[in-house]
């Protein structure tokens, strides 16, 4: 079964840019918009998603031969929910303030489409090694996407990066950037940029 599909290395590389969960698949929009007001929250969210995604992918891959087609989404969701609960409790124990700040968005990882999508597309069909590397690639892609949006929003909106001052003192904070409209604007403009880069590269490779 492992033979009919991309190899582990391919899966890993695809997750970074060509099948980036945010910029290419437009999945996981809820955390992308909600927690990217600052780098700290965005990276915590990316870490939590990475943990849940890798664990869920590995477990799903292990039980892939037991899955019944009509019950698979239910099994995926329950698997994910188990790991999200672990992540939520660990976060509340180790980083209480961050856990408070992220609020409902950690439990909401359960319905993050990136994870269900990877379970469905890869883990339920391929071996554990492929599933794990796929999850790792997708997590890194997701983290990079969150970081790009959060960097723009935090630098423009607060003049800081990871809480450190990067802009001059006279920098007027663009209040809109740390608020919800800023998330939509930044995501839209960065998506446009990503598409434009993709189009330019395609044209260039087509010309050669």
């Amino acid at each position, binding site marked *: 079964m492992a033979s009919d599909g991309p190899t582990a290395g391919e899966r890993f590389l695809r997750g970074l840019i060509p099948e980036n969960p945010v910029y290419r698949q437009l999945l996981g929009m809820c955390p992308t918009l909600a927690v990217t007001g600052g780098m700290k929250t965005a990276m915590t969210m990316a870490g939590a998603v990475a943990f849940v995604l890798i664990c869920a992918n590995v477990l799903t891959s292990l039980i892939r031969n037991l899955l019944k087609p009509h019950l698979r989404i239910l099994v995926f969701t329950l698997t994910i929910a188990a790991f999200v609960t672990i992540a939520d409790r660990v976060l509340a124990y180790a980083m209480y303030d961050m856990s408070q700040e992220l609020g409902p968005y950690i439990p909401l990882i359960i319905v993050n489409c990136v994870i269900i999508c990877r379970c469905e597309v890869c883990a339920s069909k391929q071996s554990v090694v492929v599933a794990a590397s796929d999850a790792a690639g997708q997590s890194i892609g997701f983290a990079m996407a969150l970081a790009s949006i959060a960097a723009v929003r935090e630098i423009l909106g607060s003049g800081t990066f990871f809480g450190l001052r990067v802009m001059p003192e006279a920098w*007027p*904070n*663009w*209040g*809109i*950037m740390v*608020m919800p*409209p800023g998330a939509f*604007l930044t995501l*839209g403009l960065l998506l446009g940029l990503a598409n434009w880069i993709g189009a330019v590269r395609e044209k260039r490779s087509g010309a050669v």
Partner: protein
Amino acid sequence: MTEATDNNQQTDTPPRAPAGAGPVIHVAPSPHSFSKSLTTRWMMADVLLAAAPLVAWAIFQFGAEALLQLVVCVGGCVVAEAVFTAMRGRCPLGAMKDLSAPVTGVILAMSLPCTAPWYVGFIGACAAIGIGKVVFGGLGQNIFNPAMVGRAFVMICFAWALAAGGYVQLDEETAAAAADPESGMAMTAKEPLDVISQATPMDVLKTRIKDRKEAAPTTSPARDDESPVALSRLFLGNVNGSIGEVSTLACLIGGLYLCWRRTAAWQIPAGVLLASVITAGLAHLGGGGAGLSMADFVGYHMFGGALMFGAFFIATDPVSSPITPKGRWIFGIGLGLFIMLFRTMSVFPEGVMFAVLMMNAVVPLINRWTIGTPVGGPVPERK
């Protein structure tokens, strides 16, 4: 609409006239544009011309700061238009010819306070052209009024510069007066040397209503008898506010010129004024009159804020307003209602910007509801 007018310029000479076939009958599909003055460029030039009294008054009233704001906004819009059009792979100079960027710049500048720092105007201009217009595909494709998108952007970004407090440039004396609630601040100011140090008329009204709500039985009747600022001063524009909105007279002169030239659809300002007069009257009857007489209260709402400027200059943007006469009435009336709703019910003293943006969003719906029946009966539905 403007683009359509451009594309359907008169075909003066039919492509192929058979030689010696008698008089040539000109046949062209509708819409027929029979006025040379209704091109995009002329309409935009008209708006600039109509804004001249406002600009003149703004510079007279607020001095060099208003001029600086104007230069920054217009310059920012022109630069942004050139950059963003070039990014879309179009010729920047071609897009510049329709004069729409300077119009956006002027309207944006007129809607900002003169005390706002230069970067507020510049960022607003870039947001207006970039997010408000070019992202949608350029002039004629934008759903929202670009100038109002730019203003909303900087309003949320730099609330300190544009919310009510931003208009008041406090010197130490008035700051002390403001800190003391008993002094009644700008309301009792007789003849301030510098209008910039007063609160804006709409802010005064808002504070007044709030005061009365909090201490309704104890408000001294002496304070209620006088109108916060005489209506004649509001009409002429000898008050504080966004640099273009203060003078009702200048707005009327420019606005009536626009309506006469048919650059602006007269139904829209008519609808706005009608609806807001009625709503203000109802608000007064409902007890929200802030202790003013009915005429004063309604006049205050008419002349005090950006209503006149919004009705004549902002709402009449031909791209983001409905194209049918009936639709323009609906648009204007809805706008008037929303403006008054925001002014009386929301935390903001003024609501023209948000009202315009909200009504812009429903313009496609209005257009669909009010579309006319073509000659020869309705088009049968295709199965």
